[in-house]
């Protein structure tokens, strides 16, 4: 009984010593870390940001480069008119129309890859029937990269020849999408 008590006391003493040794080692490590702290110096820079204005489907004509970004060359273009040349009448949902967009490019270099990206709102054309079914409509013609996702707002890229000077770009609008309509090919 006495021998067991003695061993227990010895074990407690050893444990206390071990804890003290561990604490000392930790203290030494912390002190070393603090000593190695680095010096720093900051440089501040300031600016301001203001955003331009744009619309999700901005109407108009934009000159773009080969990458599809708005060109920085200074070239411009504008839409002179959007008109309905002819309507093919029929049942609702099966009608079609020939449309013409007149464009006026300035300083555009089709040879350098510059193209015209056109966005028009066809709902404003008074010649089209008021009950035109836009949800199923599509378009194709002398145009590429045709985005029908926001019809009656239509976005397309005119062929290269349209950039050489004032031109009329024809295309067909179908009330029910046909093969070849809304092609994103350029």
């Amino acid at each position, binding site marked *: 009984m006495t021998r067991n008590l*003695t061993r227990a006391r010895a074990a407690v003493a050893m444990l206390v010593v071990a804890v003290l040794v561990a604490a000392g080692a930790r203290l030494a490590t912390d002190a070393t870390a603090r000593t190695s702290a680095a010096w*720093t110096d900051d440089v501040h*820079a*300031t*600016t*301001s940001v203001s*955003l331009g204005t744009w619309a999700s489907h901005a109407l108009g004509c934009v000159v773009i480069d080969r990458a599809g970004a708005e060109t920085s060359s200074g070239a411009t273009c504008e839409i002179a008119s959007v008109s309905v040349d002819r309507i093919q009448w029929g049942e609702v949902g099966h009608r079609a129309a020939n449309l013409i967009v007149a464009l006026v490019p300035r300083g555009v270099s089709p040879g350098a890859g510059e193209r015209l990206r056109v966005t028009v709102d066809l709902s404003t054309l008074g010649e089209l029937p008021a009950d035109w079914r836009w949800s199923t409509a599509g378009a194709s013609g002398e145009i590429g990269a045709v985005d029908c996702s926001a019809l009656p707002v239509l976005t397309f890229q005119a062929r290269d020849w349209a950039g050489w000077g004032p031109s009329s770009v024809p295309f067909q609008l179908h009330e029910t999408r046909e093969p070849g309509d809304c092609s994103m090919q350029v």
Partner: protein
Amino acid sequence: MPDAPTCDEPRAARRRPRWRTAVPAALGLSVLTGFGAAATSAAWTDDAYFSTAASAAEIDLRGSSDGATWSPADTAGTAVTLAPVTGLTPDRPVERTVHLWNASTVPLTLAWGTANPTTLLQGCVTVTYSSLPTAALAGSPSSPSGAAVTTATVTFTVPAGADAATCSGQSLGAIDVVVQGRTS
């Protein structure tokens, strides 16, 4: 005269516990060892004296908008003023560059401030930062020479899907970005 222990006394009462003997013995041995080591050390050492000039390192990272006019720019109030970013639209990212000169007497490792903004105007603008040299920038207190100078670029972009109704035409002033120089 005290009585000698008799054979009748219990054996445990006559023996001291082993640890009571061992611990003082260990402590005594440690003390003796320490004295011994100190004495030995004293016997084998000799002193030599030297002198040298000591000077404190100077830490000074400076900034510039054009690489010609430099300032410490230590606070937002004395920051290097970069050209404003105007007319930012989804298809046209805009970059702004800050020139950095390590005018310290020691090399500095550069890092972007951890509090620098990554988005502005409720996500209408994202801000990205160029990579900084991984090697420490050499110090050159006297002049902004080649090895002591570098540039850092901040790019402002309107994400392609940014909502025009929310973002178009918005503006924000006093955007503060920080580059930190740190000794190794």
